């Protein structure tokens, strides 16, 4: 009796761990399959350009506004916090390093997960439910190549650019707040920002952007293609894709920060 009491929860934990490992394996195989298709024809250039437009260009407003407000809020916080030990002058440096190293890539990654991952997952899941993916196969078109590859490739190309733009707009947000309401000199602010940033900060930011973009698009495609039936299946696929993308982006951010900046 007591042995059963102990073994039951252990079995449940074991089952969950095995399910998690199996899920990681399936996602890894899916991602490897997508990457392997990058280099094998046919290539669907029109779909790639369409995806670049959808993921990159149409995400600019939300990314820009998020970065602008975050940069502004960051400047206010650093100024208020720095005032406690007479370090208000570090606002340009901390805004720059905070935006470029962390907040820029992470916020853009999360915004892309919310906007793009959900859209990809819902679109592909709906295609699956309505047999459009089966139709693609019968029309001699590999759904992986036609649907997943252009989206993942587009995210790998555009999200680093979005991160770069987000970084600049975030710093500008801080600049506007600092110069308009905190009394900083504009030229000095820009000089301090430019002098403080190092090439590694910018490289890490762009690499994180590419990784986060890849994660966001891959999760959307994976959950969409493995969606269950009906409206509920589409809803679950979308929710699962966004959750997985957000968690993986934050985990990848931690790992990449360790790789780039661990002393």
């Amino acid at each position, binding site marked *: 009796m007591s042995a059963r009491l102990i073994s039951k929860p252990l079995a449940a934990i074991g089952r969950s761990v095995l399910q998690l490992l199996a899920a990681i394996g399936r996602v890894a195989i899916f991602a490897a399959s997508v990457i392997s298709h990058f280099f094998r024809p*046919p290539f*669907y250039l029109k779909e790639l350009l369409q995806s670049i437009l959808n993921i990159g260009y149409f995400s600019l407003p939300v990314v820009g506004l998020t970065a602008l407000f975050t940069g502004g809020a960051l400047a206010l916080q650093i100024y208020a916090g720095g005032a406690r030990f007479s370090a208000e002058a570090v606002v340009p440096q901390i805004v720059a390093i905070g935006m470029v190293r962390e907040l820029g890539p992470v916020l853009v990654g999360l915004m892309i997960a919310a906007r793009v991952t959900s859209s990809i997952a819902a679109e592909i899941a709906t*295609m699956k439910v*309505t*047999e*459009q993916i*089966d*139709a693609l*196969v*019968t*029309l*001699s*078109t590999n759904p992986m190549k036609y649907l997943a590859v252009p989206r993942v490739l587009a995210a790998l190309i555009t999200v680093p650019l979005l991160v770069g733009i987000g970084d600049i707009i975030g710093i500008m947000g801080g600049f506007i707040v600092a110069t308009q309401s905190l009394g900083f000199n504009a030229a000095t602010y820009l000089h301090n920002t430019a002098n403080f940033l190092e090439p590694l900060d910018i490289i890490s930011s762009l690499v994180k952007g590419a990784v986060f973009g890849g994660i966001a698009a891959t999760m959307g495609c994976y959950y969409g293609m493995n969606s269950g039936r009906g409206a509920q299946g589409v809803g679950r696929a979308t929710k699962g894709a966004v959750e997985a993308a957000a968690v993986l982006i934050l985990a990848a951010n931690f790992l990449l920060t360790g790789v780039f900046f661990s002393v």
Partner: protein
Amino acid sequence: MITLEDVHKSFGPKQVLRGLDLHVPRGESMVIIGGSGTGKSICIKCILGLVTPDSGRITVDGVNVQKAERDAFLARFGMLFQGGALFDSMPIWQNVAFRLMRGSLKRPKAEAYEIAVEKLRRVGLSPDVAPLYPAELSGGMQKRVGLARAIAADPEIIFFDEPTTGLDPIMSGVINELIREIVVEMGATTVTITHDMTSVRTIADRVAMLHDGVIKWTGPVSEMDASGDAHLDQFIHGRADGPIASLR
């Protein structure tokens, strides 16, 4: 032409196909009938390679479908899906000409457009619908577009999955007649899945009754009413009593 031998397919504990044997001769119109969930669609998906059977052998002209070169193999097929399965993001003419705009059958855009318009005309749709999107069409029109897409590349083999489901009786009759005309005109080998006995009598040369994962009866449509098979009789006459269990 198409032969299925002892095909089994299960999904978890549910055995859908339990040793299916079926032969579809070249140029014939085979209609597979049977209740919902008896494995009719899975049967077609196994032939197309969309679903891999657990065991058994499926050949088309003697070639095992699992070992055939996919692009060339699929180029021989056309399929009309139950819900049309039109691509929402594309205009109608691109849906119809999809296969003609990429892959081994690729044509210049203008030629693909002309073929699409011609196929739309063949299924009774005017060229005006070519630039519209699927969401702008009625269910019956979407079925016609699906039919036009299925025949766009003049395939040797065409599958029709529930071609009249969800349509009113008049539109069902129109689609049935269209399918029959196209089958005769193109000389294609066709497999149709349906519950609709009007479709069966209009489209079929031969009929196969699928129940419990196996073919219970197969023969010419002219012999269907006098088959003496209890399963087929119950299905044809839509009786609640008989060997096919019904949920009431």
